[in-house]
């Protein structure tokens, strides 16, 4: 194989290994339009959700479905980004599906019955048109009957932002045939008729629309466990079983209306009204509906048995317009309230004040309507107030359709006798024009401010020209900020640490005080000093006695040795050493509980001392050694008994 051929094969192999997955991946990531319907069969007037997914489309925009307008009423209900992938293995074949794009949701309501084809939407991607798949939808005609009628109304048809409006779904059900015409036509079904109402769930309401009463509270007010309509297939636990659930039923208090049936005869209908009140915060047009109803209703009696008819019904949607409060002729004092407000009450507290003192002004706007977008009127713009009062920003409190504004004011001049009336403008929805409510003036008494002496204004211009005069208290303003950075430091204190330090000092002082006292007591204790030096003194005397004996001064030597032993004993109990006899020494040693043999040896040594002293040289040769041995044993034994240290 030639070199070129080998290189070519290698290059092709590389391409296959590395380029193929890329090509597959590119094929899998190619832009596409995917469509799907949430149902394949609906009734006329019943909406179906049409989902359009723009997969792998860069910078997608909602596809235009206006081409469906002939067949459907189309409403876009939202969009949702998609970022998912899943793997499917069927008969060993692995397929990975990746979704990267946006899903757009549309509500399609068929205008006519039949099998309708929904052509796939098309989008432009990089100059190319990509079209989605066409789908078919079977639209079943609504029942031609006069047993049940349903429609949606809204009152009022136009509102202003924050002004409440009520959407009502009215269902009329023909009375049951005689003789059971008095029975509730909703109380004869084994399965309750099912309503589909799109404005039940709060989270499915259009953006900018809020219900006055939340879903749970609204449904609770309609709940009837005996009879009624099911709504949106809501289910509750069954009282008969822990494991089963059954459709929840809702039934507004019915009323009776007479209207013509299909035959043109006046017939009694049971009327059920599902009313819910909403508030729109944004300007625009909002659609409520359509609603659908399906279920079996009683139509006649046959052989004493009630016959029923399966009915499918839809009510057309209704729109409400939320208009902007007109800009024209809008007064300066317009506060944002919408409705009909009858009074503006004002209170001032206190009313007997001095110049500069704060007073609290409370304004209460009462009536019916909306105060959701209300703002606090600026009193500084009211000339009659600004002239005599310094005003501060007010606060707002709202409750229902009542708004309360609270301000702090300070009178600027003495002699003001009346707090002026205040006007607040609102938009009157009854007259479609702006209206004004006014508060009554309030009688007040403003007296002169107190004076502040210079001594109380420490740190001001001390010895200036006003030093000896009283200054008039300024009715305005505050003293300047602190600007010296040296004053900015963390001044927080931890008193517990400082207290512990002070306590520690006290404790240390007590330790030193008592330690010193103890030391002084010990230092000044003579018997203790004597006892501590007893052994050294005894050895010193023994050495002296030994030397004297060796220098033939037997008498003095024997005396020294005797004193060495007796002195040790006398030092121990702080007694007198002179005149101590061997018997006295024995008793002391016995008191110290020394061994008998040692006691005898000490006694014998003392007797030897006496004998040597009085006999001249008798026993002097061994006296020093014997006395030394006895003294050592005594010291050892006394130390063992903790009598010596």
């Amino acid at each position, binding site marked *: 194989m030639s070199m070129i051929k080998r290189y070519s094969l290698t290059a092709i192999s590389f391409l296959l290994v590395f380029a193929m997955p890329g090509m597959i991946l590119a094929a899998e990531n190619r832009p596409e339009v995917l469509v799907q319907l949430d149902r394949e069969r609906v009734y006329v007037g019943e909406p179906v959700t049409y989902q359009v997914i723009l997969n792998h489309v860069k910078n997608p925009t909602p596809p235009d479905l206006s081409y469906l307008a002939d067949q459907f009423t189309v409403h876009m209900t939202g969009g949702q980004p998609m970022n998912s992938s899943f793997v499917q293995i069927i008969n060993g074949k692995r397929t990975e599906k990746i979704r990267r794009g946006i899903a757009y949701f549309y509500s399609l309501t068929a205008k006519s019955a039949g099998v309708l084809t929904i052509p796939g939407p098309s989008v432009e991607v990089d100059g190319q048109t990509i079209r989605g798949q066409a789908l078919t939808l079977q639209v079943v005609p609504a029942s031609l009957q006069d047993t049940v009628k349903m429609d949606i109304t809204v009152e009022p048809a136009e509102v202003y932002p924050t002004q409440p409006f009520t959407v009502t779904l009215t269902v009329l059900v023909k009375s049951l045939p005689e003789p059971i015409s008095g029975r509730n036509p909703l109380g004869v079904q084994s399965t309750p008729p099912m309503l589909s109402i799109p404005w039940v769930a709060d989270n499915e309401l259009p953006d900018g629309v809020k219900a006055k009463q939340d879903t749970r509270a609204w449904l609770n007010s309609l709940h009837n466990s005996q009879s009624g309509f099911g709504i949106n297939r809501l289910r509750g636990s069954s009282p008969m079983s822990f494991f089963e659930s059954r459709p929840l039923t809702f039934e507004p208090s019915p009323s009776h209306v007479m209207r013509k049936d299909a035959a043109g005869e006046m017939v009694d209908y049971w009327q059920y009204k599902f009313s819910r009140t909403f508030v729109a915060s944004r300007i625009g047009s909002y659609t409520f509906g359509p609603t659908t109803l399906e279920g079996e209703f009683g139509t006649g009696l046959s052989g004493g048995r009630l016959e029923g008819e399966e009915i499918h019904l839809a009510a057309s949607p209704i729109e409400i317009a939320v208009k902007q409060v007109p800009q024209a002729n809008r007064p300066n004092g317009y506060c944002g309230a919408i409705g009909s407000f009858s009074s503006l009450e004002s209170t001032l507290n206190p009313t007997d004040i001095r110049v*500069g003192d704060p007073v609290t002004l409370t304004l209460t706007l009462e009536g019916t309507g909306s105060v959701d977008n209300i703002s606090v009127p600026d009193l500084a713009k009211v000339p009659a107030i600004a002239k005599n009062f310094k005003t501060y920003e007010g606060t707002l409190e709202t409750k229902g359709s009542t708004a309360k504004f*609270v301000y702090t004011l300070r009178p600027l001049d003495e002699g003001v006798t009346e707090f002026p009336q205040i006007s607040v403008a609102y938009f009157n929805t009854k007259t479609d024009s702006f209206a004004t409510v006014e508060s009554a003036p309030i009688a007040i008494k403003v007296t002169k401010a107190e004076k502040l002496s210079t001594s109380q204004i420490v740190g001001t211009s001390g010895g200036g020209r006003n030093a000896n005069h009283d200054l008039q*208290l300024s009715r305005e303003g505050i003293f300047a900020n602190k600007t010296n950075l040296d*004053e*900015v430091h963390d001044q927080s204190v931890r008193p517990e640490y400082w207290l512990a330090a002070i306590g520690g000092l*006290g404790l240390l002082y007590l330790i030193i005080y008592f330690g010193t006292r103890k030391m002084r007591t010990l230092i000044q204790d003579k018997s203790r000093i004597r006892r501590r030096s007893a052994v050294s003194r005894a050895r010193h005397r023994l050495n002296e006695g030994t030397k004297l004996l060796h220098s033939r001064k037997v008498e003095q030597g024997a005396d020294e040795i005797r004193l060495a032993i007796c002195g040790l004993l006398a030092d121990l109990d702080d007694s007198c050493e002179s005149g101590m006899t061997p018997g006295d020494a024995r008793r002391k040693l016995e008191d110290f509980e020394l061994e008998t043999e040692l006691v005898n040896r000490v006694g014998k040594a003392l007797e030897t001392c006496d004998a040597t002293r009085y006999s001249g040289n008798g026993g002097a040769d061994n006296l020093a050694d014997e006395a030394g041995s006895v003294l050592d044993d005594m010291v050892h034994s006394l130390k063992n008994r903790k009598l010596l240290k």
Partner: protein
Amino acid sequence: MKQYTILTVMLVSFLAIPFGLGGCNRVDLDTATKFQEAEKVFGNAKTDDEYLKAAGIYQSIADGGVDSGAVYYNLGNAMMKAGHRAEAIAAYRKAVPYLADDPYLAANLRYARGEGTVAEARPMIEHLLFWQNRISYPMKVYLSFSLAIVAFVLGLAAIFTQPKFWRWAAVTAVVATVVMVLSTAYDWQRFDATQHGVITSGESIARKGGAEGYEPAFTEPLANGTEFTVIKPRGDWLQISLPDDKEGWIPKKNATVF
């Protein structure tokens, strides 16, 4: 003579310790920069919102752990300029422990309260401890410790030297220490141990219990800027005591507590 010299040196050295410690906690560069920024915003402010922005910067300094009388004072000024009188009162009162003898703080607080020059009733202890409102809380702590050191050194001198002068001097120093510790403890009780508050909402109805269902405690609602002490908090409510010892319950959201 030599003894006196040694004792004097010891005394001065020991006294320098607490003052040295007190001066050690200077702020960092960030805080200083923030403070200057707040000053700039305050100086250029023309609207309530701009003053509120300055107040926000001062508040962030305080929230950063710098308990400074100057910061609270300026925060009070910014709040006052922004028209938030109640919040200004709260800020000024937070500055009081640190700037006890500051006449400007007293004047601004008085102005915010709108009390003119009418003096507040002072409790008996503040008459006995006449310096109580002239010396700051941190300074009292330092003085207590310094006096304790003086008493300690003089006490040592009394132990180790013969002249009775030292004994009397030590006893005098101990008495002074105890009095200053009591003075500090009083500040601790009123500034640290007691929670104070100011009504910040427009008005607040004080009730006889901690729920909306209770009857109002007073015939009129509490006005914005009303000061009180907190007896105890319970849930979203505070049991409070007014300066005239009247008690009631208010919602927490209607007040700022410090």
